[in-house]
């Protein structure tokens, strides 16, 4: 049995080497492609130029910020984490949309509120303006067949022009 003991240290060394190598391989930073960088940079805005997404901005500063995105990606940051990092460093203006908090809620609430109010006013106006059904029945002649009706309406509209 002792004859086989010499294998043990070799096995241990091999095992240790294997584990270390595997760890080293898993820890090797992945080099992100241009597309991966652009996918994140496209969701960010140049902190110094106005209204230019980071993925298409040609300034030297933006090239450096794209490198920073690449670096963060290689460190394992997610897109959301990178966006949060940029917002922390350069302010909310780097985000494509205002974050949903405080005054910024107004940007999301006001337009739908206006549209709903418009629809409500329109609905109320329809109800107020609308002629009662009975009067309507008297005012409107029975609807004839489609072909004749269409021609009549068309001629009428052309006359009214």
């Amino acid at each position, binding site marked *: 049995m002792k004859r086989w003991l010499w294998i043990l240290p070799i096995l241990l060394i091999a095992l240790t080497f294997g584990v270390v190598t595997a760890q080293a391989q898993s820890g090797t930073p992945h080099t992100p492609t241009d597309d991966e960088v652009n996918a994140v940079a496209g969701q960010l805005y140049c902190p110094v130029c*106005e209204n230019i997404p980071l993925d298409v901005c040609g300034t030297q500063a933006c090239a450096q910020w794209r490198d920073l995105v690449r670096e963060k990606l290689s460190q394992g940051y997610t897109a959301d984490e990178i966006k949060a990092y940029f917002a922390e460093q350069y302010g*909310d203006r780097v985000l*494509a949309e205002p974050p949903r908090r405080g005054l910024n809620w107004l940007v999301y609430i*006001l337009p739908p509120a206006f549209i709903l109010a418009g629809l409500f006013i329109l609905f109320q106006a329809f109800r107020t303006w609308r002629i009662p059904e009975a009067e309507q029945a008297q005012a*409107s002649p029975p609807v004839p067949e489609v072909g004749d009706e269409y021609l009549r309406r*068309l001629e009428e*509209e052309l006359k*009214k022009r």
Partner: protein
Amino acid sequence: MLVNLGYGAVFITALLCLYSIGAAVYGVQRKQAVWVDSARNAMLLIFPLLSLAALSLVIQLVTSHFEVAFVAEVTSRAMPTYLKATAWWGGQAGSLLFWAWLMSAFTSAVTLRKWERDREFLPWVIVVGMVTLGFFLFLILAFENPFARLWALPSGRVEAHMFAPQGATLFIPRDGNGLNPLLRHPGMIIHPPMLYLGFVAFVIPYAFAIAALITGRTDDRWIRLTRRWALWAWLFLSLGLILGARWAYDVLGWGGYWGWDPVEISAFMPWLSGTAFVHSVMIQEKRGMLKHWNMILIITTYALVIFGTFLTRSGVLSSVHAFAQSEIGPAFFLFIGLTFLASMSLLFWRWNSLKANNQMTSFLSREALFMLNNVVFMGILVICFWGVIFPLISELVTGQKVTVGPPFYERATAPLFVVMLLLMGIAPLSAWRHSTAKTLGRAMWKPFVVSLLAPILAFAGGIRLWAALLTFWLAAFVAAVTLYEFWRGAQARSRRHAEPLPVALWKLAGRNRRRYGGYLIHLGVVLMSIGIIGIEVFQTETQRTIPQGGEITLGAYTMKYDSLAIFDTADNRNAARAVVSVYKNGEYVGELHPRRDFFYDSQQSMTIPGVRSTWEDDFYVLLVDWLPVTAEGATFKVFHNPLVNWVWFGGLVFILGTLVAAWPERETESAAVTAWQPGGVHATGD
């Protein structure tokens, strides 16, 4: 000499504006027609005078008189003559003169019409036109004088002044800065004039609306007199937007055509309210309703026209388009505020005389659907307006600047665009005054069934995105309804008058150009929406650095980097021009030449894409300009843009439809009106 002539012409024009306003008001107060006629004659002088000013500026630009600050700012010796001439509207001071010149042309055109029947409008149309023009002339004289010259002061500083400061000598630079490279594009040469034509033309219906409010002539006469003006204004604005989109696609290098940039939106907003207006006025003409609303729409459009110019020119909201920045912002802001308040006050003053003559009879009538359409357009307008001004509000209130970018606009407006398409499909089938679900259903079922083919075919073709399938169905539905309307009308007329179908269609469309032009516009929108879905939903892109001989594959396409040539051009550029071969499914389909040009005079570069365009898609190759471009290796950004050419084709159909709708008809104005009595009585004769 020429600059003095130009400046003098602007100065005299400003005085004439003031005189014209004073004479018109005095004439109407004193009921003395001679003063109003004098105001009109003064207004007629303005166009030749401003043409003289414009001509003197263009001569300065073309002949490279760099002692003129504006000429030195926007031109250089190396620029071709046509670019030097069109640099007139490439900078702030020149574009304000351009605006004023166009305005003078439009006011002169209005003055030349027959005024016998509408004399009560004339003084107030003059006042509104001259107040607007006077404001722009004031900006030119007080802040942005394109004729100011460069003077070397005794201290050694160089400043721009109209007249020589004490002890100063004229400073003549050896060369100018040259036009911003991004503006050296055919689209950008025509795009601003079209937008400005649209902006300026909308002032005319506004002037008539204000005249109607002041005089109390609140029937639909002002609408009938200005409906073609409004359509032409809308045509130019639409054309300006389409050309701007094309310019962005060709020049800005992001592979798209619309970036929801504040300046793009500032041109889009008056278009939205103008679109609501051109639909809504039909309700007033046909049914005598929505008189208040039409006033609100034209007042809003006017305010947005000035606001749009303000956004572009003030630099308050800097963006890729805001090349010019100056101190004219507060003046613009004050003018918009004052004119808006004055107009709304007039409206409230006349509120009771603007009562509707008719009542709504059906929720499904065409007028009801048009009103819903108005809510949709105004909803999109509110989203745009709020998105544009919110960063300023945020900065004012919290000190924190925020960006409101495309994701916000796309998410907020997409449902409204869907509703808009749906209404475009339903409204043409509904009748004025009265429609029921039954009559509408009966008219709609055939186009509805045909339209279902589109999403079925798209699904069979492998498309699984519900948003794309829905939009394809809607586009097909609107197209089917529109073509069905053409066919039904032509068939009915053909039967009645025993005419061949094409003759019947031609005569029918000729009898109501606005109706059938409108249908063509709808078809244009359908085609554009197909293109928009193609690029918004199915666009793909990739970016890679490859050596010479290297390849990039994107979908069915492969591009191979063959060679690169770097050379100087005669107009002072350094060009890096790559040659790439393009293969589709392995088969060679052609060669593209993406390039990067560096302009020595302005020290700026621009990228020009190489594009393979077909009805099916665009294969769009850019040289990434911030990375080294060498024969050994270069970085390319490649886009696959499916169906994008349908946007441009749809745009052409759209413009053609607007031309048909806006084309003058033989109808005489007297046929439209027989009598009018004060007190808001609806007394049209047709």
